[in-house]
């Protein structure tokens, strides 16, 4: 469905991504893990068109999208929830979600239909409809962000660290929603620092380091890889998954 071949990209000074190859099959959940600064968010940004790759090929269902603008890529059915700062803080929750349907704004019936669908799937959009997005808690914000990207009924959802800053209960809610969406047929590509959670949720795993993909495979194969287990899962037991102690040493090794 989605395919990246030898993608190189950066922010002006040097390349952050140094030839990334990645495949997402339809209706899978692929989880990218790796130390801070590995380029995980950057991968999502080149897919959604916020950042232009300097070389390499990105295609969706066989069609090249690497040179398209963000709104053209949205129209291809790819939506993104970034790591942070996605919502419009001074707009109501309802309006934030409605903005997710900006590209279908001319089709009022469809907009209405999608809004009803989102309200049903993500109840918080209804219960906090009138509140400003800036007044929500971290977990509620994540739900609204995901709800917003459903307005275009995407084929592929890109989620950047959905667990970031969430308490266990919100976490379960977000994970449940991701699973539900996937079961409804949506392909998911997510980035997770919380490696246990991410790979637990995913069907496939990708390990990135220093702007390159180091390992790919099914989620369980990646989880059971001895090196990965010791690096990111903090060994057999003890330290927090994806915590600073486990990711720390690798960050320096991966320094871009």
């Amino acid at each position: 469905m989605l395919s990246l071949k030898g993608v190189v990209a950066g922010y002006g000074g040097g390349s952050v991504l140094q030839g990334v190859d990645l495949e997402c099959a339809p209706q899978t959940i692929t989880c990218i893990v790796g130390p801070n600064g590995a380029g995980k968010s950057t991968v999502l940004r080149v897919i959604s068109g916020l950042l232009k790759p300097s070389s390499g090929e990105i295609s969706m269902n066989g069609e090249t999208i690497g040179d398209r603008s963000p709104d053209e890529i949205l129209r291809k059915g790819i939506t993104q929830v970034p790591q942070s700062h996605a919502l419009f803080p001074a707009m109501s929750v309802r309006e934030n979600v409605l903005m997710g349907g900006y590209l279908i704004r001319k089709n009022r019936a469809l907009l209405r239909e999608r809004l009803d669908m989102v309200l049903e799937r993500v109840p918080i959009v209804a219960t906090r409809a009138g509140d400003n997005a800036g007044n929500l808690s971290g977990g509620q914000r994540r739900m609204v962000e995901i709800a917003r990207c459903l307005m275009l009924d995407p084929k592929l959802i890109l989620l950047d660290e959905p667990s970031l800053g969430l308490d266990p209960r919100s976490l379960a809610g977000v994970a449940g929603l991701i699973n539900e969406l996937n079961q409804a047929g949506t392909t998911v590509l997510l980035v997770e620092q919380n490696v246990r959670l991410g790979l637990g949720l995913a069907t496939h795993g990708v390990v990135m380091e220093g702007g390159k993909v180091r390992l790919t495979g099914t989620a369980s194969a990646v989880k059971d890889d001895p090196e990965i287990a010791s690096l990111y899962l903090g060994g057999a037991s003890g330290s927090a998954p994806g915590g600073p102690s486990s990711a720390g040493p690798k960050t320096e090794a991966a320094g871009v």
Partner: protein
Amino acid sequence: MTHLVQAIALGLLIGGVYALMASGLTLIFGVMRIINIAQGAFLILVAMLTWWLWHETGIDPILLSVVTTPLMFGFGWVAYRLLLSRIRGSSASMSVLLTFGFALVIEGVLNITAGNKFKSATPSYFEESFRVGAISLPKAQVFGFLAAMAVLAALYFVLTRTWTGRAIRAATQNPSGAALVGVGATGTAALAFAIGSATTGVGGSILSVLYPFFPASHYDWISRLLGIVVLGGMGSLPGALVGAGILGLAETLTATYGSLNWSTLVFYIVIMVVLLIRPQGLFGAKLREDTV
């Protein structure tokens, strides 16, 4: 007491007109981080055009904003596409240089075509007043205020009830978030600049009646408008309304109880005091401290 009521009423009427003039400036800054120094020159350009149309046809100057507003909308749109879009992504100081240059060009053109003389449109009601009890309100002032309020209400409607307005607010609050839902940065910026320029259509028409002007008057106006916008908080519309009200009141109250010469100075003292306490202005958000 009558003096006080009179001064306050007049101050609010003037403040309403200032609010309209400052709204465009703050809107443009909010969306694009462009400080449009040419906003004052746009006002004078419209005032000059209004004066000329009034002089030739005798049509009421404030009514002529029906012509000048769409004209300035188009003018703003083209100016953005041809000129301002080229400095996208540069710092705000770059926009000051560019729009200052733009203001100088407009001033030069007006000097050549209209001449370096004071002008003022004087419709029939120019020297008449409405009397409400003991206070009298100049008709021109009242009409100007009403026109300004009508435009501000329309602006509020566009910003809150239309997709264009939603896109503009989204781009103001979170540019990358707006890009993620498909709001094109260039198109939105061009629209915001066009709408911001269109406010000078009505603003300039009112100006032509209420204030004598000549091509270089734009310096005077832009400093007032910048003062209002800085006081209220750069990019905040409610801030512009309150800032404009404070300027209007500061002017009329100082002129009533002190002297006309001091009236502008008092406003700048207010700005300095406010900025010492709240550097981001009355309604301004601290830069990117929101957590969304």
